[in-house]
């Protein structure tokens, strides 16, 4: 996968105060991101069911996104999701479905629960702006090690590279009692 994450942070690790400053700056910078694309693999576990798929997620600011969900063993497209404010279309198994909520569509048609509204922010290592953050734990560089929001615990286990603005490489999300989502980001592209 992408550049291996160096184990030890760089020598000029920031002190606590800077960690907070970096954390604030990160959120401000990322809020101005106009578009981004994540390509990686997602594993979902819910009670004794699990699914894993390759995902390509193209997000255009807050207004639209497109997502390709593929079978990792065959590369065949399992589902295509296209979202704009208030309306989401899901194509799967040759049929098209529409709803206001992508999460409801994925759960209903594919039995997969993905907190996409929150993930739109969490996968980049920032909290969702529109709901309170119950808890956050920062590393020395001001990147989140863990954050808790809207019932989900989001743990960051690896970064694309070793500076405070790095994007995540390995993310584990969990929601009590029995839902787990693992995201491995293999390629990030961002635009401001």
């Amino acid at each position, binding site marked *: 996968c992408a550049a291996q994450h160096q184990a030890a942070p760089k020598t000029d690790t920031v002190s606590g105060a800077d960690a907070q400053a970096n954390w604030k700056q990160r959120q401000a910078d990322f809020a101005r991101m106009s578009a981004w694309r994540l390509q990686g693999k997602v594993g979902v576990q819910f009670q004794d069911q699990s699914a*894993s798929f390759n995902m390509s997620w193209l997000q255009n600011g807050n207004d639209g996104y497109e997502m390709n969900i593929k079978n990792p063993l065959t590369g*065949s497209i399992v589902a295509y999701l296209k979202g704009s404010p208030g309306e989401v279309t899901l194509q799967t198994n040759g049929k098209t479905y529409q709803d206001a909520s992508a999460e409801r569509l994925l759960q209903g048609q594919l039995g997969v629960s993905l907190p996409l509204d929150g993930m739109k922010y969490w996968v980049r290592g920032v909290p969702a702006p529109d709901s309170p953050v119950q808890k956050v734990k920062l590393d020395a560089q001001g990147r989140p090690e863990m954050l808790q929001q809207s019932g989900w615990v989001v743990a960051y286990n690896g970064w694309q590279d070793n500076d405070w603005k790095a994007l995540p490489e390995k993310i584990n999300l969990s929601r009590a009692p029995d839902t787990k989502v693992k995201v491995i980001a293999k390629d990030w592209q961002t635009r401001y």
Partner: protein
Amino acid sequence: GGREKLDEFFTQVNTMQSAFTQQVIDDKGELRQSSSGNVFLSRPGKFRWEYAAPDKHEIVADGKNVWVYDVELDQVTVKPMNKALSAAPVAMLLQKQPVDKQFSVQAMDADNSTLEWFRLTPKKQDSDFTTMDLGVGNNGVEEMILGDKFGQQTYIKFQGVRTNINIDNSRFSFTPPKGVDVVGTPS
């Protein structure tokens, strides 16, 4: 000829080991993914189908359950055998019985191939694969094309097929590595 070799494959082959390459072509004829790995088969009911590329996956049928280990995600899914018949292309080859007992067999004319081809349609439809074309050469089954109800084709080429050799039984058992999430309950 080819038909004798086909019958032999289904009635004389107890174990098989081979490298494979796989290409998946979608219903519009577009290449979806190329992958490769190794397969180990022990009839009846056991196989190991390992993808080495593009991602490492281990699919092991131990006779009772099928374990699917996604190495990258540290995630293992286990299902009883009868619920995982489409887990890997080799799952259609698990029984050591005359081919006609399991499939209806049709010889195909494939003049642009050095192999003799047969189309096998399962008598019992319990897997996503609706047809299985087998290309038979001097080493027995050398190529396989699986078709599913979405019109997708999975092309498998076996390289270095060895049959009826001694394969260590550990190949056909699976113990989840430490720290890996195991989902599902083995029967």
